[in-house]
C-alpha cells in the first residue's frame, strides 16, 4: 500500500486543485456577466449607438447621464446594478456619458469605457471604473491604470490604447453629451425614469426603488 501512497496523494491533490478551480471559476463568472448577453446592447457602432442593460420590452427605463469621476455617480452605480438584477426583465438601464469639465480624467475614463465597448466589454469597464474611482481619480498616470484595467479584463491592450485615441470614441462620448445638453442635463448624476428626470433627492436606493415601483404601476409593457 505504501508503494502506491505517493501516487494516490498526487492524484488526489490534482483532482482537488482542478475541482476547486472549477468551482471558483463558476462562482466568479456570474459576478462579471451580471446579465444575459441577449439582454445587452453595447454601443460599438456610430455616434447613435448606446449602452443598454435589459430588454427593450421592459416597461420601465432608467437612463443615467454619468461621469466616471463624479463620486455621487460612483455611489449610485452599485444600487442601479442591483435594481437592474432585482427588476429584470421589467427594467432596463441606459448609460450615457456626461463627463464634466471640472473632473480632470472624466473624459479619458469615458473614452476608456468606449474603447472597452469596442471589444465588447463596455459594462465591465463601466463597473470597474466606478468601483476603482477613488484610486484612478488620484493617480499620477491615469492612462497606465486604464491600460492595466483593460489587461485585467482580457482586452487587447494595444487595440484598446489606439481606440481610446480614436475619433470614433470621441464622437460617441460627444454624442451623449450633446443629447444630455439638449435634455437640459447640467450635473451628474442625472437620471431619467421613463423620460422624466428624477429629483436629486430620489437618487438613492430607497428613492429609486419607490420611483420604479410607482412607474411599474402606471406603465404597461412596450410591444
Amino acid at each position: 500500500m505504501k508503494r502506491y501512497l505517493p501516487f494516490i496523494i498526487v492524484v488526489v491533490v490534482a483532482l482537488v486543485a482542478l475541482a476547486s478551480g472549477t468551482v471558483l471559476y463558476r462562482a466568479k463568472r456570474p459576478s462579471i456577466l451580471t446579465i444575459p448577453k441577449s439582454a445587452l446592447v453595447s454601443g460599438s457602432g456610430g455616434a447613435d449607438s448606446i449602452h443598454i442593460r435589459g430588454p427593450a420590452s421592459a416597461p420601465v427605463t432608467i437612463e443615467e447621464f454619468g461621469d466616471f469621476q463624479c463620486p455621487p455617480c460612483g455611489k449610485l452605480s452599485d444600487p442601479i446594478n442591483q435594481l437592474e438584477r432585482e427588476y429584470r426583465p421589467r427594467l432596463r438601464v441606459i448609460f450615457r456619458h456626461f463627463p464634466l469639465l471640472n473632473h480632470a480624467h472624466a473624459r479619458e475614463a469615458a473614452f476608456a469605457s468606449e474603447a472597452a465597448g469596442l471589444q465588447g466589454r463596455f459594462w465591465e469597464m463601466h463597473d470597474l471604473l466606478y468601483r476603482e474611482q477613488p484610486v484612478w481619480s488620484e493617480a499620477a498616470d491615469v492612462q497606465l491604470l486604464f491600460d492595466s484595467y483593460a489587461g485585467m479584463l482580457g482586452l487587447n491592450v494595444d487595440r484598446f490604447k489606439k481606440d481610446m485615441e480614436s475619433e470614433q470614441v470621441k464622437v460617441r462620448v460627444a454624442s451623449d453629451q450633446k443629447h444630455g445638453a439638449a435634455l437640459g442635463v447640467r450635473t451628474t448624476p442625472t437620471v431619467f425614469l421613463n423620460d422624466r428626470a428624477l429629483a436629486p433627492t430620489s437618487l438613492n436606493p430607497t428613492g429609486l426603488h419607490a420611483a420604479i415601483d410607482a412607474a411599474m404601476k402606471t406603465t404597461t409593457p412596450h410591444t
Partner: protein
Amino acid sequence: MSGSRTRVIFYTVAAVISLAGLADATYLTVIYLTGETAVCGGSASCFQVLGSAYARIGGIPVAALGALAYFGAFSFATFSAFGHTRMRMFFALIVCAMFATTLWLLYVQAFVLHAFCRYCLFSAAVTFLLAGIAVAVPPSR
C-alpha cells in the same frame, strides 16, 4: 536524527508549502480566466502587475504556468518523501527553474512596472522557501 528521517521531514514540509503556492497560482489563474477585477480592488499596483503584458506569455497566464510548476514541485517532493531518490533531482531542478523565474518576475515588478502585487509576492515567498529547503536538504549517501 538520521539523515533519512530529516530528508523525509524536509520533503514533507516542501510538499505542504508547494500546496500553498498551488492554491495561490490556481486562484490567480481563475481570476485571469474569468476577467474578475475585484481581486485587486483598491490597489493600483495589483492592477498594474496582473493587468500587464508580463502577466501572460503567448496568451497563457503566468499564473497557470505557476500552478503547473507548484504541482510539479508538490509531486516531486511527495515522491521524494516516500524514498523515490530519483525524484529529488527533479525536485531540485524544478525549484531551481521556479527560483530563476521568480527573480525575473520580481525584477519586472521592481524595475519595469514599479509596482508589486501581493499575490505575486506571496508566490515569491513560497518559492524562496522551497529553494531554501532544496538547498538545506541533507544529501543522500
